[in-house]
């Protein structure tokens, strides 16, 4: 095996954290090497070291068996390493060509004649971009503005950008997070094509299924250490999950059939606009009954966030009606909606779900601080809050040094547990969960999934919004697919297939049967 890249004994310390501890990693020429690990396992740190964003405290990096130092991302690109970040590094108002040549321009540093040179580059760049797109099946229109492109196409621009810089080694950081299953399959084909051209790929994901679909080898990191490397042929999902978490994990949640009761949430012809007055939710009607989980699948950005925000009173409703247990909550304020018995696990836990600079205890009473027994008159009873916090920390297995620890210093999984604990502790009639496990480790996902099913079994109506098809398939009793602001179809989870849902998520309505 010849190695495109080898990293030996990489150690990187951050204050109080050993992010990488004697990590060995190698990438054979022409292979797709999957890198698996929970959040905080040190994957990103390792990749940032390989991409020159950080310098390791110890260890060496070999490119083509020659020891080297990667001092900056610029240097990494020079040495043939490219990276497609999870959050795209594109300038939305610029065209595809402009985005792709942007780094090259600054490389030349010909600021004095920039105008004229840019024109020259543009023509040559366009030709080269077309050539690259054709060669790898990466369809992009070089003259389109990035802001007008769908997410999948933006990702292709990122990949072309790396290829344009002639990256021999390409790091793909969670590239499938924003894609439909079909788009992900297309990406895998493209990745295969790149391998055939002699390039080497590092593929980071937390979806075990994808590891088996595309990689040649898989390495697993945990707690800053490299746990091991294996091949998909020799591994099973359970094995990889166990390597990741360090203990046995139940991947498939066990749940009994739903016993739906009376309708709790009734939505009629709902229309919602976003900040720029684009119609994000378009004539949506559905219902959720007590004791069932309605899953709303769909690629991110198809109106799910606006839908949930409208339901919880956070966003004005354009038209239509929302009823919670026969109460019209259409234009009610968030607090009134909460008091009708609606709990909400928001999509963005840092923005909406938590006050990071507040202690765990205060975050646990964020929605109930003004009610008895936590408040008497205007005074907050700190002892009651502390008692409640200790209770929930125990019940929900929130790992925190104390209930007075700032929630911002907890891990993502524990932060999400704080939100789930808070929202489930109230007598809720309707639980709305939006992307409840995004970015969480397998152990926390398992825990939160179980809690959601338990809430259902207690007779709570659950609306689950998720871009993770696996999550929808394992939790939901009925599945609706949202595409461009509309609910395309509502399927019985027992008969829905991944392929069928994938097509619906891409907006293809044919071939779907109720």
């Amino acid at each position, binding site marked *: 095996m010849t190695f495109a890249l080898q990293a030996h004994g990489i150690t990187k310390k951050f*204050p109080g954290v050993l992010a990488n501890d004697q990590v060995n990693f190698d990438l054979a020429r022409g292979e797709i090497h999957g890198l698996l690990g929970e959040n905080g396992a040190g994957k990103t740190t390792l990749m940032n070291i390989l991409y020159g964003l950080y310098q390791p405290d110890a260890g060496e990096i070999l490119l083509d068996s020659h020891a080297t130092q990667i001092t900056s991302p610029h240097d990494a690109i020079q040495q043939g390493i490219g990276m497609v970040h999870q959050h795209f590094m594109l300038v939305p108002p610029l065209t595809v060509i402009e985005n792709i040549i942007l780094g090259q321009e600054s490389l030349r540093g010909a600021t004095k004649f920039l105008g004229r040179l840019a024109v020259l580059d543009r023509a040559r760049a366009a030709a080269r971009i077309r050539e690259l797109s054709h060669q790898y099946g990466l369809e992009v229109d070089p003259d389109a503005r990035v802001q007008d492109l769908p997410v999948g196409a933006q990702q292709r621009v990122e990949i072309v950008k790396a290829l344009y810089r002639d990256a021999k080694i390409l790091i793909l950081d969670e590239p499938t997070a924003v894609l439909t299953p079909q788009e992900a399959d297309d990406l895998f084909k493209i990745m295969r094509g790149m391998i055939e051209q002699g390039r080497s790929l590092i593929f980071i994901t937390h979806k075990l299924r994808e590891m088996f679909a595309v990689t040649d080898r898989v390495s697993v990191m945990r707690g800053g250490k490299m746990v091991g490397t294996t091949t998909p042929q020799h591994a099973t999902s359970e094995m990889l999950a166990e390597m990741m978490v360090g203990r046995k994990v139940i991947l498939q949640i066990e749940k009994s059939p739903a016993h739906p009761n009376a309708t709790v949430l009734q939505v009629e012809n709902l229309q919602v606009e976003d900040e720029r007055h684009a119609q994000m939710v378009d004539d949506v009607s559905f219902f959720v009954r007590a004791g069932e989980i309605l899953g709303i699948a769909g690629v991110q950005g198809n109106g799910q966030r606006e839908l949930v925000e409208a339901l919880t009173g956070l966003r004005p409703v354009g038209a239509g009606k929302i009823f919670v247990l026969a109460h019209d909550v259409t234009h009610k304020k968030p607090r009134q909606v909460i008091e009708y018995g609606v709990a909400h696990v928001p999509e963005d836990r840092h923005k909406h779900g938590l006050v990071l600079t507040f202690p765990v205890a205060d975050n646990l009473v964020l929605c109930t601080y003004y009610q008895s027994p936590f408040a008497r008159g205007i005074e907050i009873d*700190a002892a009651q809050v502390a008692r409640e916090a200790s209770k929930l920390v125990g019940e929900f297995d929130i790992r925190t040094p104390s209930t007075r620890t*700032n929630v911002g210093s907890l891990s993502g999984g524990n932060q999400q547990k704080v939100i789930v604990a808070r929202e489930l502790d109230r007598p809720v009639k309707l639980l709305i969960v939006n992307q409840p496990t995004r970015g969480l480790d397998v152990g926390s996902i398992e825990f939160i999934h179980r809690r959601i099913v338990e809430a259902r079994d207690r007779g709570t109506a659950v609306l689950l919004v998720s871009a993770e098809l696996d999550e929808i398939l394992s939790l939901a009793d009925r599945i609706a697919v949202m595409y461009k602001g509309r609910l395309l179809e509502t399927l019985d989870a027992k008969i829905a297939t991944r392929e069928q849902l994938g097509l619906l998520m891409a907006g293809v309505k044919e071939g779907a049967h109720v």
Partner: protein
Amino acid sequence: MSNVALKNSPNDARSAFAKTLDALSNPLLAILLAFVLGAVIIAITSGNISTVPVAYIGLIEGAFFKTRGLSESLVATIPYVLASLAVALGFKAGLFNIGVEGQFYIGSLTAAAVGAAFHDLPALIHLPLVLIAAALGGAVWGAIPGILKAKTGAHEVINTIMMNYIAYRLTEFLVSNVLRDKASSAVQTIRISPNAELWNMATVPARLTDPLNAIFIALLLAITTFFFARWLVLRTRVAARFQTAAQKRAFTTALTFMVALAAFFFLPLLTQTVWPWTDPYDRLHIGLFLAPAAAVSVAWLLNKTTIGFELRTVGANPSAAQYAGINIGKNIVLAMALSGALAGLAGAIEVLGVSICRCLPLFFSAGYGFDSIAIALLARADAIGILPSSFLFGALRNGADLMELRSGVSKHVISLIQALVLLFVAAPAIVRYLTRQKTKADAVADVPLTRGWGR
């Protein structure tokens, strides 16, 4: 499942102490560094190292040890405390109230007007009335930018600055026209009623001979005792000594009445015999008790009440506040109004307790409002921490004159030292670097003191 008893674990108690020490180490180091750097600057500008001890000894003597030095330092500290509380309260709600100076002016103006409006009201009524009026004046002045922000999103920094100018000019206009004392050659307002004054410390024994005044003081002490006793039986170990809520109530009531009665009957007599303040030129006034009371009240409001919880949540994360059903607009207006009220009180103190003429003169320039921003930052917007921070600034302000007299070093060096303190507080990384402190692992920013433009 790890169901550990988290509350009252020894680990928690230790970390509370460690946290306090941690919180104090940076400001203290910042102050020390500022004085060291100040010394260097004094040495360079005067071209003589021996000027440094002369200057600093003069500063310390002026601030504490010369005749009435300590008193004057405290006189400057009192408005600082209130004005800094105004800034800190804004910070906690995510608002940068630069309009404290303007609200201070409006408070002074209102106090001067209401203080001079009545002549026969007893202090029992008149003094609280003037203070409430000044607080209301400041509150209105603060609430206007608050409403503008809540309704239109207009940034409070711009609008409070503009409100400052309106306040200056309005004050000038009213002082030189409507409220002007025509009998005086100086352009100033009519002298306020003695009953509206914040009593000078030296006059307390004489004033207490009036039974109405004695009732006033007894009432104030009773209110203080009530809250103290309540805190005692609810929040401290004393609570364990009582079985029922009725017992706690009985204890609180009894203590309150005993203190009130004792104060009414014995305090006048006591102050006749033992009273440390006898110097009639000493300007120290009973605001000395008002300032810490205000600090404790603000700390209580922010940390122990639902109102404070909402204000702090809006300040720390408006999106989460909205999610939790907290009305952001209402809290912005409330925070600005409360902030303005505190600033207004600070302004009232200047007229009611400090000014020689017991009135509001034209061209009265305070500057308290701007210094208070630095003080609030030094205290990291902590209401109790503002007490020592204000005292530091008050002492520096007061000691500067003697420093200049003794060493010839311009008293503006004090502004420089204050600025350095602020710089080091605002940039803890510099202090850490200079003192080779290790960066703390969980260096999660504690208070977002201000947010950027827009919302």
